[in-house]
C-alpha cells in the first residue's frame, strides 16, 4: 500500500465519538485528506483506541485494544486522526504499554511514527492549505490538553484557519486551560467538570467571538453541552468541519436549532 510521497496512502482513524455522534467530522476529514492528495482508506474493523481503559487503570484491556489498532493500521504510509487525544494515545502511550515486550514495542513505535493528528498532518506533512473556503465571523480556539501538551499542536489549526475567508480568530486568555472533559472524569465528577467548563465558557464568551472551534470532539461536546444548558448562543464546530467548508446547512455541535 505504499504510494509516492506526493500521494501517500493514508488510513483514517475516525475515533469513537466522531463515528457515533458526529460522522460529519469524519467526512470533513475525508474531504480534506483527499483534497490534499492522499489516497484514503478507512479500515472497517476499527473501534476504540483503548484510551478510556488506559486512563482508568485497566492496562490489560488497553493493551488488547492497542494490539488490535496496531494490526488494523499496519501497512499505510500514515494514520490520521481528527483528535489530538486519540493521536497522543497512540503516539505517546502505546509504546509505554509494550515497554516490556520488545517485538510489540517495535511495532507500536512504528505505528506511533506514522500516526498524525489531522491539522498537524495537513499542514506539516501535506503542506496543505484550504482553498476557496469561507466562514464569515469570529472564532476562538480551544487547545485541547493532549494535543497541546503531548503533540505540540498549537499553530497548525490556526495557520490552516488563517486561509479561511472571512474568519477572524480571537484568542481567549484561557485557551490552553483544560475544559473539564477528561474522558470518564466528566461523568465521574460532573460537578467539578461542569464548574471547570463554566470557567472556560465565561472566558470564551468574554472574547466576543460568535464561534468556538477545537480539534477534539470530547472537549467540544463538553463545552457545547454546557453552553446550551446555560443558554449561550455561540456555535461550536470541529475545526475539520470549518476547514472543509462543511458548516453550511449543518447543525453545529452546540445544537442551535436555527442552524439546521
Amino acid at each position, binding site marked *: 500500500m505504499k504510494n509516492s510521497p506526493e500521494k501517500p496512502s493514508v488510513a483514517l482513524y475516525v475515533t469513537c465519538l466522531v463515528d457515533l*455522534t458526529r460522522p460529519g467530522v469524519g467526512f470533513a476529514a475525508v474531504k480534506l485528506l483527499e483534497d490534499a492528495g492522499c489516497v484514503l482508506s478507512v479500515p472497517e474493523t476499527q473501534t*476504540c483506541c483503548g484510551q478510556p481503559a488506559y486512563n482508568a*487503570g*485497566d492496562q490489560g484491556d488497553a493493551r488488547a485494544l492497542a494490539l488490535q489498532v496496531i494490526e488494523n493500521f499496519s501497512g499505510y504510509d500514515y494514520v490520521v486522526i481528527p483528535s489530538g487525544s486519540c493521536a497522543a494515545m497512540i503516539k505517546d502511550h502505546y509504546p509505554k504499554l509494550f515497554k516490556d515486550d520488545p517485538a510489540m514495542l517495535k511495532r507500536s513505535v512504528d505505528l506511533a511514527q506514522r500516526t498524525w493528528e489531522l491539522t498537524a498532518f495537513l499542514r506539516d506533512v501535506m503542506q496543505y492549505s484550504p482553498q476557496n473556503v469561507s466562514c464569515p465571523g469570529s472564532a476562538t480556539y480551544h487547545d485541547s490538553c493532549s494535543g497541546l501538551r503531548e503533540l505540540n499542536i498549537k499553530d497548525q489549526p490556526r495557520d490552516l484557519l488563517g486561509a479561511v475567508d472571512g474568519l477572524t480568530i480571537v484568542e481567549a486568555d484561557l485557551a490552553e486551560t*483544560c475544559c473539564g*472533559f477528561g*474522558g470518564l*472524569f466528566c461523568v465521574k465528577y460532573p460537578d467539578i467538570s461542569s464548574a471547570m467548563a463554566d470557567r472556560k465558557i465565561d472566558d470564551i464568551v468574554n472574547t466576543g467571538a460568535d464561534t468556538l472551534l477545537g480539534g477534539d470532539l470530547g472537549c467540544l461536546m463538553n463545552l457545547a453541552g454546557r453552553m*446550551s444548558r446555560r443558554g449561550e448562543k455561540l456555535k461550536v464546530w470541529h475545526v475539520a468541519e470549518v476547514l472543509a467548508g462543511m458548516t453550511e446547512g449543518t447543525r453545529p455541535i452546540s445544537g442551535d436549532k436555527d442552524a*439546521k
Partner: protein
Amino acid sequence: MQSKTAHFKENAKKALGDAQLQRVLDKFSTGFPVKRAQAAARLPEFEDLRDAARDIRAHVLDNLDVYLERFETKVIETGGMVHWARGGSDACSIIGDICKSVDAKTVTKSKSMIGEEIAINDYLEKNGVDPVETDLGEYIIQLRDEPPSHIIVPAVHLSKEQVAETFREKHTDLPADRVLDNPRILLDEARGKLREKFLSADVGLSGANMLVAETGSIALVTNEGNADLSVGLPRVHIVLASIEKVVPCMEDAWTLLRVLARSATGQDLSVYTSFVTGPKRSDDLDGPEEFHVVLLDNGRSSMLGSEFHDMLRCIKCGSCINHCPVYAKIGGHAYGWVYPGPMGSVLSPALLGDVSANDLPNASTLCGKCETVCPVRIPLPEMLRQWRNRQFEANQMPTRQRLGLRAWAWLARRPRTYRLVMEIGTGLLTKLAPRNGRFKNLPFAKGWTSKRDLPAPQGKTFMAQWKQRSNGGSS
C-alpha cells in the same frame, strides 16, 4: 492532621457552592501562573536549571542512605542531635520529650507541612505546651482552627475581610476603631502579637526546605523572616523534616533555590533564605543552645523503588497546585488532607496508606499542565495513572464503573458485534432525539446530562455511511 479524603466528593461540592471561596480562587489561579511565567521568561537558563534540579533530586533518591548518614554525621559534628522517626507518633513523642526536658510552655513554629502531617500542634496542646504559628497564613488559620488549604499559602482560601474579622474576634485588646483594611496593616497587627510570643518561647520548631549533607545545615525559606526569629530566639531549636529533603552540597541547594521561588511565587528568591548550622557557638552573638533535627519517614521509604519513586523528587514549591484547573475550582480543603492538588493526589494515597484517598488520583483530567511547570519535572499525570492501575488491579473501582469499562472494552475487541450494537444504539438515539438536537435528560447518562445537554447523534454512524458511500461507488 485528620484525613477527610474519603469525603472528597462532598467536600468538593461544598467548595463549588461557596461564592466567597470561588472569588478568592479565581484571583489566585490567574495571578500565580502569570508570575511564574514571567519569572521563567526572565531567566534564559530556566529550562536547563529544571533539568539540573531534576537530576540532583533523582541522584539523592538513588543514594538516600549515603546522604542521610553524611547529614547526620555533620549535624553531630557541629554540636546538634539527630532523631530518627519512623511514623508520625514517633516524631510527636520525640518532640514532646525535648519540650519536656526543658520544661517548655510555649513553642514558636515556623511553617512546616510535616508538622501538619503528624498533627504536632494537637499533640503539644494535649501535653500542656502552647504551639504558636508564626507564619502569617498559618497564624490566621490557627486562630480560625482550620487546616491549611495550600502548601505555600496556607490561608489562600480567605479574603482580607475574613482575616480582619478573625483578628477582631480573637485579638480581644484590639481597639474597635482600628482600621484593618489592607494586607500591610493586617501583617503589622499579627506581628505585634507574635513579637511577645517570640520573646517568651522556650522552643522554636521549624521545618526545613532542604537538609545539606555536606555541612549539616538546614535551609529555611520564608517571605516574612518569621523562621529566623522562631529559630534564633528560643533556647532550643527543633527541626522537623522528612528524609527525602536532603541534598548533597551547598551548590546543589542553590541550584534548587534558583528554581524553587520562581516556580512557587514567581520571585527570583524568597525574601529570606537562611542556612542554620548547629547550635550557637561560643563566639556567636545569638542562636539556640540546643539544635535537634527530627528526621521523619512516615511511609516515604516504601515509595522508594516503587512506581511512585519519582514523586519523592518534590521540593514542595506548590507550582503544580497553582496551575491545576481542578484546584482552581475546589480549593485545597476539598482534598481533605495536608497536600492538595496534583502533588497531593499522588502523595496522600501513599502516605495515608489506605483506600480513603482513592478519589484523589481519579479526580484529575490528566490535562498535564502540572508536569509542564514542575521544577523537578515529576511526571505527575503518569503517577496519577499509576494509582489508577493499582486501584484497578486491587479491584477497588466502584463495581458499576468497572463493569461499564470492561463491557465497553469487550465490545471494542469484537469489531463486528461492536458495529452492530453501535448501529442499533445510534439508531435509537437518533429516533428519540428532540427536535433541537439536544438531550436534556437521559436516564442512563445522568453523569453527563445532570450538568450538560447531550448533542444527539447526527444520524447513522460514520462507518455505516462510509460503507454505503463505498458500495454506492459515489465518492
